[in-house]
C-alpha cells in the first residue's frame, strides 16, 4: 500500500514536470516550429529531408529514406537490439543438453485436420491464411520504398505466420519449417546483409553505409538508384532478423526453453 502511494506521488511529479514544459511547445501542427522548419540561423534538417531526399535517393517514401539511408546506422543497431534481445532470451531460457530424449520433428499424422472439430476449423483456416500472410509480408518488405512498410513491419508479419502455425497445430510443426539452427542462422544473416552493404562502401573507399558508391556493384547508373536498391537490400536484412527473432522468442517463451510441445 505504502509503495503504491509512493509510486503515485512519483508518477504525479514526473507528469507535472512534463506538463509544465508543454506551455513552451510550438503550437500543434505549426509549420514553422523548430522540428518542422528549423531554427533561424541553422539549416533545417526536416526541410532538407522533405526537399532533397527524393533527389538524393529516388525513394518516394521519405520515412524509408531517413530510416534506411540518412539514419541507417541507427536502424542497423535497432536490428542489433532485436538480435540482442533474442540472444538474451536464449541465454536465460533455453535448456540445452540434458534433454531426456531427442524430439522427433517428423509429422505424426496430418494433425492439422485430425482430432476434434474445432481443430479442423482452425487448422484449415491457418492453412489457407498462412500463404496469404507470408505473401503480404514479402510485399510489405519489398514495397517499403513507396508505401508504409519495410523490414521491421514485414519481418513481424512473416514471423507471425510461423507463430500462427505453432498456435494452430503445435510448436514442432512450426519448428519443422523453421528449425532452431535455421532461425539463428537467419537472424545472423540478416544483420550480416545489413553490415555488408556498409562494409562494401568502406571497401570502395567511402564511409560506412555510404550506399551511393555501390552503383557499379548494383549495376545502376548513378548513386541515387544505388541508394534506392541498397535500401531494399538492408530492409531485406532487417526482415530476416526480425522474422527469425520474433518466432524464436515465441518458441522459447511458449515452451520454457525446451522447444517442445509449446502452448
Amino acid at each position, binding site marked *: 500500500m505504502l509503495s503504491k502511494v509512493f509510486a503515485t506521488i512519483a508518477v504525479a511529479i514526473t507528469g507535472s514536470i512534463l506538463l509544465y514544459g508543454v506551455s513552451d511547445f510550438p503550437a500543434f501542427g505549426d509549420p514553422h516550429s523548430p522540428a518542422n522548419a528549423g531554427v533561424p540561423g541553422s539549416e533545417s534538417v526536416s526541410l532538407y529531408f522533405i526537399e532533397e531526399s527524393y533527389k538524393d535517393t529516388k525513394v518516394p517514401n521519405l520515412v524509408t529514406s531517413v530510416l534506411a539511408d540518412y539514419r541507417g*546506422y541507427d536502424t542497423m543497431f535497432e536490428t542489433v537490439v532485436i538480435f540482442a534481445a533474442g540472444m538474451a532470451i536464449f541465454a536465460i531460457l533455453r535448456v540445452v543438453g540434458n534433454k531426456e530424449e531427442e524430439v522427433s520433428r517428423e509429422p505424426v499424422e496430418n494433425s492439422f485436420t485430425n482430432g476434434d472439430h474445432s481443430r479442423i476449423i482452425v487448422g484449415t483456416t491457418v492453412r489457407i491464411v498462412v500463404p496469404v500472410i507470408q505473401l503480404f509480408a514479402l510485399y510489405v518488405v519489398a514495397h517499403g520504398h513507396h508505401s508504409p512498410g519495410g523490414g521491421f513491419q514485414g519481418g513481424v508479419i512473416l514471423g507471425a505466420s510461423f507463430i500462427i502455425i505453432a498456435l494452430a497445430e503445435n510448436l514442432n510443426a512450426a519448428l519443422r519449417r523453421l528449425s532452431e539452427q535455421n532461425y539463428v542462422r537467419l537472424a545472423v544473416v540478416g544483420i550480416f546483409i545489413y553490415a555488408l552493404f556498409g562494409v562494401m562502401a568502406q571497401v570502395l573507399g567511402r564511409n560506412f553505409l555510404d550506399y551511393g558508391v555501390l552503383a557499379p556493384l548494383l549495376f545502376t547508373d548513378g548513386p541515387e538508384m544505388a541508394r534506392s536498391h541498397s535500401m531494399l537490400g538492408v530492409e531485406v536484412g532487417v526482415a530476416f532478423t526480425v522474422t527469425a527473432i520474433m518466432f524464436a522468442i515465441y518458441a522459447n517463451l511458449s515452451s520454457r526453453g525446451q522447444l517442445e510441445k509449446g502452448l
Partner: protein
Amino acid sequence: MVDQIPALLVLAPLFGALLVALIGHRDHRVCFPIALASLSVTLIGAIAAAQHVFTNGPMDYFVGGWEKPLGIGIHLRIDALNALLLIAIATVAVLVSFFSIRRIGEKNAEKTHYFYILFLLLCLGLFGITIAGDAFNLFVLVEVSSLTSYGLIAMGSSRRGTYAAFNYLLMGTVGASFYLLGVGYLYLTTGSLNMQEIHAILGTNPEIAESKAVTIAFIFILVGIWIKMAFFPLYGWLPNAYSYCPSSTACFLAPLMTKVSVYVMIRVMISVFGLEWVFVSLGWSNLIVVLAVIAILAGSVLALAQREIKKMLCYLIVAEVGYMVGGAWLADEELWGLTGSLYHILADAAMTLCLFLAAGIFVKSFGARDINDLDGMFKKAPWVMAAFAIGALSMIGVPPTCGFFSKFYLIRGGIDAGHWEFVAALLISSLVNAVLFFRIFEIAFFGNKPAEGHDHGHDDHEAEEITIVRNEAPPAWSGLFPLLTSAVIIVLIGIFNGPIVALIRTFFEELPTVTLLHSTLTLLP
C-alpha cells in the same frame, strides 16, 4: 585507413558476435579466440584513434557520408574527452575475456556461446555510446548495452541473479525512457538531434536556451542517466545485479557500465548543453554537489555494513559514482573537478576491475564469499591477495596508485570551488575505505578470531546459490593474468597521472565556453 576507426570500433565486436552466433554452438572452444581477436582489433583501433586525436585533433565520422547540413546523418566523434575511455573499455574487455575462459566453461558450459555473443554485443554498445555524436543514436546504443547486460546478469544459475536482472530491467527501462523523453523535448525545441548542432542552436538562440522545455529536457536526460549510473537515491538495482551475476559478467559490468554513464553525463553537459548553460544559467551545481556528498557518505556507510565481499564492492561503486558526479558539477574556474572526474573514470575502471577480478577468484577458487572466508588468504593465494591489496590501497587513496591522484584532483577542484563539504566527504570516504579494507587485510593476514568466527554461516544464501566448488584449487592463469595486469595498470595510471591529465585537459582548451565561463563566474559574488 585511420579515418575509418570509429566504424571499426563497433563493427569488429559486431562481426565477432555474429561469427560466434553462427559457429559457436558446435564447439565452444572457438568462442574465446573469436572474442579475443575482435576485441584486440578494437584495442588497437582505440589506441590508434587516441594517437590520432592527440596529434591531429578530433576525428569526425559521418556515417553514410551525410555531412552537410549537420544532423541529417549520424555523426560519430572521437575527441580528447572519449579517446582514453575507448582505450579503457577495450582494455577491460580484453582482460575480462581472458577471465571468462574457465569461469563460464565450468558451469552452464552449454551456454558459453550465448555469453560471448552478449559480451561482444555489450562491448559494441559501450563503444557506440562513447563515440556517439548524435543524441538519439546514443539512446539506440544504450538499448544495445542494456539489453545485453540484463541477459548477462540473468544468465547465472542463481535465482537471485534472475530477480536482480528483472529489477535492473525495470529501472534501466525507466532510465532509458527518461533519457528519450528529454531528447524528444530537445528535438521539439531545437529541431535537431546532432549534439554539436543542438549546442550551436542553444548558444545562438537565448530564447530557446532559456525556455522551460529545454530545462525539463535537461532534467529528464540527467535523471535518466543517473538511474543508469546508480547515483545515490537511484542505486537500488545495482548491488544485487552486480553481486548475484556470474563473476565474469560482474568483472565487465562493474568497471564499465557506471563509468560510461558518467561519461555520457559529462558529454551531455559539455557538448549538448554547454558548461555555461549548465553551470551559470541553470545554477544547480551547489544542489547536485550536495547530492553527490550524500551519495558518497551513504555508499561508504552501506559498504561498511556488508559482510559479502562483492556486495561491499558494489556499495563502494555507489560512493565512487558520487565522487564523479560531484567532481563534474563542482564548477570551479579551472575545471579541476571535471578533470578529476574524467581521470577518475579511468582510475575507477581499473580499480573496480582489479577488485572484482580478485573477488571472482576468491569465490571461484576458494569459495570465499564473505569477508570472514578470507581467513589466511595471504598464505593461500599471495598473488591474488597482493593484487587485491593494490586495488584496495587505490580505493583508499594511497600514492602512487591512481586512487590517490583522482582524489587529489577532485579535492583541488573542491577547494577551488569552495565546496568544503565535498572535500570532507572525500576524506571521510577514504577513511571508511581504509577501515573496510584493513579489516579484510587483518582477516586475510592474521586469520579470523575464533570468537567472531564461523557462526555466521551461509543461512542467508539460498541453497541453489552454493554451487561453488569447495576444493581450494589454485587460481588459474586465465584469472591471474588479467588480475595482475589490472593491478599494474592501477599503478601505471597513478604514476603517469600528469601526462594523462594533460591529455584530458587538451579538451578544455578547445572549449570556447570555458573562457566565457570564467568571465561570468568572476562577475558572480
